[in-house]
């Protein structure tokens, strides 16, 4: 079946809001080539569980498809229309299983050497979309905070090397009450600019604060869900006929209740499941969990504030130690986690800078309970260092 053959009744299995959106816009959906449409449907089918920013973006994309003239349709989607698809893909139930279709499409693009053509078409399309529907500037400048290195005495290499060129490196920070000051700053921003999923606190351990109006996700808080997921994966891989594709499909279909997550907030519940099922390493390394969660929160929810705290991850045992042990128990590795957190902090900043208002955004990375921090803000000169004695409060104030 091709997109032009779409009928309203084919969306019956979609959740209520997604169903309504699809049926109301079926004419627009019919105009989109098959090499692209299932990617859009994989978002649409999740519409009921998406963040406000994602819903808005999806609505704009569909509205755009509806507004194009026939000539413009060729201009916008020509690159995708050139992609050759197999009859098997065309006959796939891509309406009800769009994510699985996209996986198979990816495989076919690689095998038929069309990945570069698809990549070029996708880049051109997203650039056009961005130009036609520029993202709204945030209500206030975004603020990203990364706290790294808990439990580590010192770093074997200079910290924040990738962030320093973009701001001021402070070498004489007074650490007293640092976390409290940062936490309070986040709480103040949430009070002053309340909005769903606009302010986040992501912790690699157990969260130290319950902040009103702030979405909190933590590695420690999700421990039962992680354990349930690993048990489920372990069971599945020992079942007959299981392979990586099948396992990915099972994980993609997983629901919060299957991992013991409550249904108080279905949007957040689905988000947490996706972090654990789609993020490689998020189930076992807390540093990876924090970095990936921040990436996904920024990409999807486009928040105004993100406070991320990297906690020590479990130690990866070398082979000789593994062979010598009779039982395994998780040990923490603060020193190596500091290195992970340093890179994670940089990625947090990179991902924040992908959002609208990047030139006004602020970012602070701090070696927890130590004297080193880097601050990036319009008011801060780039690529400079300071030996001025400063509290975390001072740094926040100077960022503006």
């Amino acid at each position, binding site marked *: 079946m091709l997109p032009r053959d779409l009928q309203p009744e084919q969306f019956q299995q979609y959740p209520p809001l997604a169903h309504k959106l699809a049926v109301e816009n079926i004419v627009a959906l019919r105009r989109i080539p098959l090499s692209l449409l299932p990617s859009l449907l994989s978002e649409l089918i999740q519409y009921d569980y998406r963040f406000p920013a994602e819903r808005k973006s999806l609505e704009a994309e569909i509205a755009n498809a509806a507004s194009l003239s026939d000539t413009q349709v060729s201009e916008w989607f020509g690159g995708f229309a050139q992609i050759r698809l197999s009859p098997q893909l065309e006959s796939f139930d891509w309406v009800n299983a769009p994510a699985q279709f996209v996986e198979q499409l990816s495989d076919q693009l690689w095998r038929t050497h069309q990945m570069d053509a698809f990549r070029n078409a996708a880049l051109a399309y997203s650039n056009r979309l961005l130009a036609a529907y520029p993202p709204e500037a945030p209500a206030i400048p975004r603020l990203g905070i990364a706290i790294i290195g808990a439990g580590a005495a010192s770093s074997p*290499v200079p910290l924040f090397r990738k962030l320093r060129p973009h701001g001021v490196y402070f070498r004489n920070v007074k650490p007293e009450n640092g976390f409290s000051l940062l936490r309070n700053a986040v709480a103040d921003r949430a009070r002053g600019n309340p909005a769903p999923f606009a302010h986040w606190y992501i912790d690699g351990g157990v969260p130290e604060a319950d902040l009103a109006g702030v979405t909190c996700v933590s590695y420690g808080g999700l421990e039962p869900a992680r354990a349930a997921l690993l048990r489920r994966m372990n069971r599945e891989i020992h079942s007959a006929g299981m392979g990586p594709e099948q396992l990915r499909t099972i994980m993609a279909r997983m629901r919060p209740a299957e991992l013991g997550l409550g249904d108080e907030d279905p949007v957040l519940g689905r988000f947490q499941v996706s972090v654990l099922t789609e993020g490689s390493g998020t189930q076992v390394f807390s540093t990876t969990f924090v970095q990936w969660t921040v990436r996904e929160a920024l990409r999807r929810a486009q928040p105004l504030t993100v406070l991320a705290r990297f906690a020590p991850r479990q130690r990866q045992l*070398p082979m000789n130690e593994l062979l010598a042990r009779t039982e395994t128990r998780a040990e923490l590795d603060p020193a190596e986690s500091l290195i992970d957190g340093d890179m994670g902090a940089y990625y947090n900043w990179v991902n924040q800078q992908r959002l609208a208002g990047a030139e006004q955004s602020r970012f602070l990375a701090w070696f927890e309970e130590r004297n080193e921090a880097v601050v990036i803000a319009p008011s801060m000169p780039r690529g400079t260092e300071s030996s001025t004695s400063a509290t975390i409060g001072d740094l926040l104030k100077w960022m503006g």
Partner: protein
Amino acid sequence: MNWSTEQISRSRREFLSLAARLGAAAAVFGTSPLHGAAVHVHPNPKKIVVVTFGGGARDDETFSPAGQENIPHLLTELAPQSTFFTQVVNRGILGHYVATASLATGVYETLNNFASVPPEHPTVFEYFRQQLKRPASDAWVVAPSNGFNRIGESDHRSFGDGMGAGVILPKHLLAAAMPADSAAYDHLLQDSYETPYYTPGLRGNELQLQQLERMLQLSVGDFTSHARTLSSPDELSVYIARRLMQQLAPSLLWITLHDIDVAHSGAYSLYVDGIRRTDRLCAELWNTIQTEPEYAGKTAMFILPDFGRDADDDAGGNGFQHHRTGDPLSRTTWMMALGPGIRERVVVDRAIDSLDLVPTLGGLLGFSPSFAKGHPIAEVV
């Protein structure tokens, strides 16, 4: 910044030049493949060792100024002895088994990266053995995981069963030697960092535990005892490769290292540790070549990652963690060639293709890889 292949090339050249200026090398590096190089003329090598990294390393962590601390051996010991290619472009599928299979056949294979299937096209081992009438003991592959167990020979109809290379999967052997209830057993069964919870079944001509003693003169007890002194599967692979060199002295030995691919876990420190270990192991292999009588003075070594990893600034990826975007950084890598007949201190900036390796090996050893799509590399052959 979006990296172009030219920028990637420039980055590596600048770094190599820097290393030379710092006195790491005795002489400056050549500015082109044809000028300024210290040429040492030798006859073609009689034996070849190929080392690939399954799990590419980016310039950021290797050849950039910030990355140089991670690869001291490659830069100060091996690069000055090598012809260094700054741009090796992989236009195929960026999965480790399929990419390594493509390197070994000289054709961009399209097989399922996670299935236990042989390459579609003849491998370098089959060309080598059939055309030069070499015995099975003369071509070996040491590979990291079950997924590579079919890489030794294709199912091409021009080449019969048993015409390829023997394959040793050291980690699989170790798992087989360990009691199934040991704490390390599950970890050893973990086959791939990309799909850590899936291990394909074995069906190929891989060496079995009971053959270990006969072929390598290595008892299971000694094997497991030695493994207990090693920190990673790649160290085990190099140990087995050395044993092969000492006992069977194969003329064509292909070693695929995989520790770097721990990057898929998202832990940057482990990824960098993997790079440092790989750097050290490459130097150890080269030193083994120089000290083993069967290899010294007549062996060329080729070192190359199978491909790169995603750039930090590509929104479709997550930086070093994966190789999914197909961006220039993930497609472009490098290669070092060392040994008799290969010029030293030469940097080649022109882009070559991953597929050029097999025709180049054919040119050096004297066989014709008729189905391979690449071209012999003029600066080496």
